[in-house]
């Protein structure tokens, strides 16, 4: 599982905060690569031509996609969250897809930082704290009425309150866990299948080619599936964040 190991690149010596070394890791490097890639993608498409070219059309369809998702889920109040949800969606999408790139052919080992709970957990905490801040800012202590749906019979209120509270508090974990496990499971699956291919080649002429060829075909199919999963997980993360924002904004 070498692909998941985080190793420091530089900055290990001299940099010490509260007794901990803060090096620049390969995880941080790939976060920067994803951010720079996103920046190039955006700058290339923000020329604001009257008749959009191909690139501008790609950027516009992405922003339009996030825009309509927020309009459908939150309503007219959702307009102000477009920058946050859009950055979140595109950053996760770029990170997931960059991690699947066959760059190892050129000697560069891609690192999927979304396959670490420390990275996705921070993204989830960020979304969750925005929900809390917006909810308490806008509705003050009325925000707690989120935990007691309309028309709950009186004897049921304590039970429903506890259930809703737990399901609310579990949200950041489920949000971060989903992305991290989905990405890690996909990469582990590809690694196991490539291990089958190599073992099959080593096994010699008898059963070897059968195992290798079958695993290799399966691997190609799983690669296509992983590209789909990379996009779907980014979409689900953005969609669930917008749903939680809807709760904070409109108090169901």
């Amino acid at each position, binding site marked *: 599982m070498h692909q998941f190991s985080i190793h420091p690149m530089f900055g290990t010596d001299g940099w010490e905060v509260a007794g901990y070394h803060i090096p620049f890791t390969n995880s941080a490097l790939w976060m920067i690569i994803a951010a720079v890639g996103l920046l190039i993608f955006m700058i290339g498409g923000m020329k604001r031509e009257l008749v959009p070219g191909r690139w501008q059309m790609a950027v516009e369809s992405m922003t339009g996609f996030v825009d309509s*998702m927020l309009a*459908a*889920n939150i309503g007219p109040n959702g307009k102000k969250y477009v920058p946050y949800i859009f950055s979140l969606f595109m950053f996760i999408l770029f990170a997931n897809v960059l991690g699947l790139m066959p760059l190892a052919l050129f000697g560069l080992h891609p690192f999927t930082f979304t396959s670490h709970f420390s990275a996705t957990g921070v993204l989830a905490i960020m979304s969750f704290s925005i929900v809390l801040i917006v909810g308490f800012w806008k509705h003050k202590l009325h925000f707690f009425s989120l935990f007691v749906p309309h028309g709950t019979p009186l004897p049921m209120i304590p039970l429903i309150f506890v259930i809703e509270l737990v399901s609310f508090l579990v949200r950041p974990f*489920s949000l971060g*866990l*989903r992305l991290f*496990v*989905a990405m890690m*499971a996909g990469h582990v699956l590809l690694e196991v299948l490539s291990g089958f291919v190599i073992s099959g080649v080593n096994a010699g002429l008898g059963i070897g080619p059968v195992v290798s060829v079958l695993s290799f075909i399966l691997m190609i199919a799983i690669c296509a599936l992983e590209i789909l999963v990379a996009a*779907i997980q980014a*979409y*689900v993360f953005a*969609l*669930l964040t917008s*749903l939680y924002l809807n709760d904070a904004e409109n108090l169901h």
Partner: protein
Amino acid sequence: MEAEAAKLVGAGLAAIGAGMAAIGVGNVFGSFLESALRNPGAADGQQGRLFIGFAAAELLGLLSFVVAMILIFVA
């Protein structure tokens, strides 16, 4: 049974959860497709709900994967 063996058996049993989640995800998309073919006009508007259902079903399968990983590497 040795503790190590019990952990591995437990991790294997957790794979049942992943299979069950596969049934759930298939159910979500299957039902969506079935009703989308009956009323194609309303299908596009329900795509958000489709993915919410997908995410909820998938999370439980991913949790069983986490249980397996914890049993093998952590516990």
